[in-house]
């Protein structure tokens, strides 16, 4: 990796100030992604601001929301009784992420900013509009079996890699951010940007802004939820397709549904039309299949990943059946 400076921030304000003064600065928490990207030269920050000393690790119920500190480690969140009780799909998504070793290091704030595993993004010898704007998209017309089918553009088809962001999008989680201009809160589905013509811009964060935590509104039917992840091997692998599902069912009729898809979108994908279709529908396979069709509206395959369209539908149907059972 390139030589870089390293500073350990003693306060959130100090961290933000340090980053603000260096346009090539990055925050580091667990380091499971940024260090990896530095070793393969995709990232070359001049300064790493270590935020691990900041008091941002708490997980607690605050009023109607579960607050998860940005530095809470994935395994600690997955094991937390409030999380497990309120939204099992969050705990399951975390448990199906990475490996136990990585989950002990990786932070929740960092996971939301996890970069894509697209092979072209990760190979500095390959073209990639996300890494090197204007260089082209290697994945289109290339090895694209793992790439996205939803939210793509002619500039980028890279899949969003996070598992936990999928149920969090379904739950309308709010990202709490502190920055040079003060603090703000952003609903997670507004936090991510579609690639469009600017795939290098992945979130609405501006330089120097620091995620301090997440507020996840308690969903009355959140306990009736699951996360289903389909992948080539049983563990330690990114999703070919995944679905987060929470259902409020009474007397065989769906009163409300929350859905999100992973492994198929350029961002964690919230199929609101499918949620709408399920509202008031009977909890039957036919209704689920209809919702899955609606959820994949606009999906586009790029050759090797064509199968993901069918797989995503089947994954969503299966997850709906699991929750309805």
């Amino acid at each position, binding site marked *: *990796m*390139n*030589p870089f400076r390293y500073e350990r921030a003693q306060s959130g304000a100090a961290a933000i100030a340090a980053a603000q003064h260096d346009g090539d600065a990055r925050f580091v928490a667990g380091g499971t992604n940024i260090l990896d990207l530095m070793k393969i*030269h995709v990232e070359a920050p001049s300064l790493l601001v270590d935020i691990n000393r900041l008091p941002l690790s708490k997980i607690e119920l605050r009023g109607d929301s579960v607050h998860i500190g940005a530095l809470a480690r994935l395994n600690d969140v997955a094991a937390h009784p409030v999380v497990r009780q309120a939204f099992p799909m969050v705990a399951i998504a975390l448990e199906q992420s990475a490996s136990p070793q990585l989950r002990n290091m990786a932070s929740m704030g960092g996971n939301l900013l996890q970069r894509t*595993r697209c*092979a*072209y993004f990760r*190979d500095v*010898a*390959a073209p990639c509009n996300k890494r090197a704007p204007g260089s082209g998209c*290697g994945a289109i*017309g*290339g*090895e694209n*079996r*793992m790439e996205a089918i939803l939210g793509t553009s002619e500039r980028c088809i890279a899949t969003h890699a996070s598992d936990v962001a999928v149920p969090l999008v379904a739950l309308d989680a709010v990202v709490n951010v502190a920055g040079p201009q003060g603090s703000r809160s952003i609903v997670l589905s507004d936090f991510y940007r579609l690639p469009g013509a600017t795939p290098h811009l992945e979130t609405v964060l501006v330089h120097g802004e620091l995620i301090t935590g997440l507020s996840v509104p308690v969903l009355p039917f959140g306990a009736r939820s699951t996360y289903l992840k*389909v*992948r*080539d*091997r*049983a*563990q*330690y*692998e990114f999703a*070919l397709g995944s679905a987060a599902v929470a259902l409020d069912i009474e007397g065989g009729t769906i009163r409300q549904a929350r859905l999100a898809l992973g492994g198929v979108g350029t961002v964690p994908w919230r199929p609101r039309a499918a949620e709408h279709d399920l509202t008031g529908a009977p909890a039957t396979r036919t209704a689920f299949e209809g919702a899955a069709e609606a959820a994949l509206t606009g999906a586009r395959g790029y050759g090797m990943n064509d*199968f993901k369209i*069918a*797989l995503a539908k*089947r*994954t969503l*149907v*299966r997850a709906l059946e699991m929750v309805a059972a």
Partner: protein
Amino acid sequence: MSQPVLGAPLDRVEGPGKVTGRIAYTADNDIPGMVHAVVVESTIANGRIAAIDESAARSAPGVIAIMTPRNAPRVDARKVDANDSLLFLLQGDAVEFDRQPVAVAIAETFEQATYAARLVRVRYDVRPPTTALASGERFLPDQIFGKPAQHKRGMPEDAFARAAVTLKQTYRTPTEHHNPMETHATIAQWTGDRLTIYDATQWVFGVQHRLAATFGIDPKAIRVVAPFVGGAFGCKGQTWSHVPLAAMAARLAGRPVKLVVTRPQMFGWVGHRPQTEQVVGLGAARDGTLAAVTHDVLSETSMSDEFVEPSVVFSRDLYAVPNYAMSDTLSRLNISKPTYQRGPGESTGSFAMESAMDELSYALGIDPLELRLRNYSANDPDSGKPYSSKRLRECYAAAAAQFGWSARNPKVRSTSRGRMLVGSGMATASRATHRSPCTVRMRMNADGNVLVQCGTIEQGTGTPTVYPQLAAEILEIPPERVRFEFGNTDLPAAPIAAGSQTSGSVGSAVVVAARRMRELLVSHDGKPPADGFEVELEDSPPPEEAEHATQAFGAHFAEVEVDPDLGTVRVTRFVGAFDGGRILNAKTARSQMLGGIVWGISMALFEDTRYDARSGRIMNANLSEYLVPTNADIPDVEVILIAGDDPFANPAGAKGIGEVGICGSAAAVANAVYHATGIRIRDLPITPDKLIR
């Protein structure tokens, strides 16, 4: 003696040192004054180096030299024999595959060398590469292991045309990279014109020989040490480019140099299993008796070498088939030279042949196991020679009983467990045993303790445990009184530790030496003299050994669960039974079989090196996207060893056991997937996208 020593599942004497990290592998060694070299590899697969700008790299901290084609010492990169290959030693500007060495950064620390390597700017004149098997220039190689590339016995065309039932299918296996846990590493030190090399290799004498030719010096001036090897599986069998590059860097720097190959570079110049396209034809009578088998293989090789994946060996040497035809065609591609990977030939060939046999069993309505038994061959069907021993029938019976094969519903897609479709499949394992001359020196001291010396290596197979065990059995002393010294060129010459030949070669030499030592002991009334005894001998296979065909056999039975909607496959049970002749240590032998089966499951479901067809670049050169199984992917695997003597194989009575476990195991999984789903996957790996089409 109260307990038999031979075959006992003794713990590895090297085990505690390995698990506690006390044992040093090549890269763990440091030499005073040593500096570090990092290879800069090409990012194109075809073309020429137009210019290299190393100015930024040269002025980076700690940098001693940047070695490029401009300043690299002139050496001889040509191959020394048919098994060797052209090396890429910065002697020219041609680039013929992705990740070919194009420069080497040498610096005081590994980190500084890594950074400097990054700063070397290489500009290329790029030409379009060819990496698709179908697109390469095709040719028949001159020979495959001394045999012609086309061969037949009987009248295969007539027999095929007249057969009651025929089947012809194409099977494909992808490029697969070895990826042993220890990456390649070399330390090179010049002392005047003498060279000392630490290397992760399967053959210290091979490295010595190759470097002598490369540098034009006497092999005796080169000492090669392979302390411990952290897995190899064939990729450390030949001397690849980084070994002489380390020595060249040491010469340029005037300092000892350590060069460690990175994980992404493991997909570069250090060999891989070539992709194959295999057409198998079976002609049979209604009762399943095979009348004709044809096996035509297309496999890839590099631009500058011929490597043949001998997949045909499996179909040629197993079943009682009177009429047989084979061919091996090569396709020249912009790839690095393929090489041997665990079970070369039989691993890929068994997938095709045992899948085809499974297809035939369903076509005929004959149980897959019964079909194999109906074509059981008492003799090697190609040479007509008797087998040195063959307990394949016992393997079938033991594994089938343990698996519960007879309770299986023969109909496809007939069994389910909850939502999951359940299927079971089987396949035969077969792998030739080789043997080469080997020299050992055995010394018994006055106190009765024994030292055995042999320049073989330890790559995880249990060398320091098993050979003392073998000597102790013959000398009738406890194995802990025998010490085995190995791993450098000062020791008596051993053959390459590959091709399932080490037990037969080193083991036989140890047996012959121990027998002679025992005679000496008897002639001295059981007591060694004050200065001890020493025996040194070269043991070579006598001509009469060629009167028998020596092959290890086995039977694989796999159960899978397939999600019919999502296409995911999980192997839920696996039973393998093996005939490896005399078993020297039941524990290390079992580990060999387990490893082979796990790799077979991996071959069936996961491994697949992916080239971008436009750039020729490997797009999954890491262990995140190049999938190997996790523990969660592997069920309980039951290994049954059908042990028994083999009086004709070699003095050790041992057939090769290092590779037979992978031969056929991928086919057993594929056959189980077919039984579960009714979907026949003929191109590996079997991934969800292929099952939900």
